[in-house]
């Protein structure tokens, strides 16, 4: 039932209220004195040498790709886990077979050096 979700809604609203109140008071009390140097990006006292909008190590993207594969798998696990007892041996074998290709994928990734940072 949707009535169960009242608590979630209340906490969401409360989170918004707390954040807005804190930032609101902050905006009211805080000074606003503008000068050029203050609004530059932080760079240990230098002016910004290079823009941060540039290419980054591909390793980060590898992690993201691996994440997609395994997180989808983990979400498939959940409904199975909650009703596993009713599915019995058949359910266990089905999930086991489902896991094998993923395990092979992980091992392949490992051997190819995809897990090395």
């Amino acid at each position, binding site marked *: 039932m949707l009535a*169960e979700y009242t*608590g979630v809604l209340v906490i969401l609203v409360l989170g918004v209220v707390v954040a807005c109140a804190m930032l609101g008071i902050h905006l009211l009390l805080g000074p606003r004195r503008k000068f050029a140097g203050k609004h*530059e990006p932080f760079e240990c006292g230098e002016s910004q040498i290079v823009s941060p909008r540039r290419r980054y190590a591909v*390793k980060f993207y590898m992690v*993201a790709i691996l994440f997609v594969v395994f997180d989808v798998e983990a979400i498939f696990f959940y409904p199975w886990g909650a*009703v596993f007892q009713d599915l019995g041996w058949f359910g266990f074998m089905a999930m086991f077979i489902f896991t094998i290709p993923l395990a092979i994928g992980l091992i392949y990734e490992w051997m190819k050096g995809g897990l*090395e*940072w």
Partner: protein
Amino acid sequence: MTPLMHGFVWGLVIATVLVTIAVLSIWFERKFSARMQSRLGPTLVGPAGILQLVADALKMMQKEDLIPEKADSILFRLAPPFTVLFTLSVAAVIPFSENVLAADLDIGVLFMLAVGGLVVFPVWIAGWSSNNKYALLGAMRAVAQGIAYEIPLVLSAMVPVVLAQSMRFSDIISVQAETHWFVIWPLGPGLIAFVIFFICSLAEANRIPFDIPEAESELVAGVTTEYAGMRFGLLQMAEYLHTLIASAVAAAIFFGGWDGPFAPGLHWMVLKTLALFFTIFWIRWSLVRFRSDQLMALCWKYLLPLSLLLVMVAALFVHYCGVGA
């Protein structure tokens, strides 16, 4: 009380109490870390320096709300409130006793993981919109670490789900109350799953030893580099809330939640949560940080296969011995 009123009242109470404890814990951590390093910590403001928090909050509020010129100003402003919002939402499904719970969802554990997992988005947005290379590098590392450790986290949180045959938090705790806490029995899978869950929670919350995203010596302050005043305060509060809520979840699904002798359930749940919360501080001030390659290797090569195996072992246990054997 109607379900609507129940959700309303307890939602209000739980959120308020958790935010208060999270803020108080900042004082506690300063005192505790000071003791560990043979210092005194805050002493001047109030008895034992406990009003230092109020002083800090007032100071933060009186700072200028600084938005760097090159930053994407809308995203930059929105990110900190959203970190708090997503972190706090998880608290809705955690039961603190039979009655003290805001929302007893039948998909509780899944909700906890899904909403808790959203926190990487505001962190990434904060780092990206700052337009500062320290912030961006910090965000890159935070997201890489957050999503990598999400997988063992999801799989280890599944062990109690399989053992209790339910995703509802109150069902998981009832099964433990009737039999044993999952951390004790079944011998092995429960304890190892708890350790994995705990390690992953530390990594998700960017706590030491997993604080490479905000490594002060190289990245200044990571994602929070460009933030000033209360927006920085919100980001910091979200971090402490995250740790507190992760300890509450661990207490509920592995340590039997409200189950315990002599005292009312609420006391036990609070005690267990705070004990785990304290452990996190203890770890933080005892260890040094991992390198990126070490923590990625730990996640993908050890925790992931191990947690997959644990789910299978738990399933076999339920198949042969039944729920709550």
